[in-house]
């Protein structure tokens, strides 16, 4: 009973703040809504017995990544955006997404003849989803993706520094000054 209530609370919060991310006019409000969405998702992970992931989501994701994003928003000193104008292409995009979402709804709530039965909730050991279980998997079975992920992080760090750093004067003027505009059609 408590679990059901908790689920509905987290689901409602996730939906509400997710909506907040995409409709907020001020980017700072969007970022804070996204942080709350992650907190709600962490609650859902707790319900799914994936406690390590829940804490990682809060500590790493909303605690580091989103802080970085908020930092950048403050750095760029962004103000309120203009209201959204609905061009024709945007209307098509929205229509498509609404159709997709409706199809998903219909598919999920039809009866069991569709394709999967309402699956049972299997019993699990107490340490399923704990740090120990994930670490065991990560360092034995998923060793290769783990190492590749570290390569990816190295590449991301190098890339981010290279792109975001202040260019030297001869990087901007260059040995050839490309002041010309690119030729269009």
């Amino acid at each position, binding site marked *: 009973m408590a679990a059901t209530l908790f689920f509905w609370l987290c689901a409602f919060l996730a939906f509400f703040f997710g909506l907040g*991310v995409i409709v907020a006019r001020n980017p700072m409000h969007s970022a804070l809504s996204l942080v709350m969405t992650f907190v709600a*998702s962490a609650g859902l992970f707790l319900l*799914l017995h994936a406690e390590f992931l829940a804490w990682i989501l809060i500590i790493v994701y909303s605690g580091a990544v989103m802080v970085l994003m908020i930092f950048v928003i403050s750095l760029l000193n962004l103000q309120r955006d203009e209201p*959204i104008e609905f061009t024709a292409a945007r209307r098509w*995009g929205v229509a498509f997404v609404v159709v997709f979402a409706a199809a998903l709804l219909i598919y999920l709530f039809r009866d069991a003849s569709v394709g999967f039965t309402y*699956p049972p909730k299997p019993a699990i050991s107490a340490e399923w989803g704990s740090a120990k*279980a994930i670490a065991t*998997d990560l360092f034995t079975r998923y060793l290769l993706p783990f190492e590749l992920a570290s390569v990816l992080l190295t590449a*991301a760090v190098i890339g981010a520094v290279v*792109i975001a750093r202040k260019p030297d004067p001869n990087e901007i003027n260059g040995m050839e000054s490309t002041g010309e505009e690119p030729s269009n059609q």
Partner: protein
Amino acid sequence: MIGLNHYLLLSGVLFCLGVLGVILRRNVLIILMSVELMLNAANIAIAAFSRYPLFNAGTLTQEDYMTAGNGLVFVFLILTVSAAEVGVGLAVVINLYRQRSTVNIEEVNLLQG
């Protein structure tokens, strides 16, 4: 009684919200945040599938399920990768802002089409 369907529905709705955000907003940072919303939706879906597996498809037995929750490692790695992606994305946005003093995607249109 909460089951797989509930989690999948929530995940689907969040995914669609993210897609809408990318289509409708013009601020590059908000587009990036919408992409993060999409990835978060996928994470919820994978975690839900890990907890409520569809035993009629696949080759894992109940014993495997007790000890291995390999969907969770998948989520962990997706979190890692998307954190790296956000880092690079913010760097690219800073570069854009330094060159063009805007983060509005509609004002960034030197390359036609």
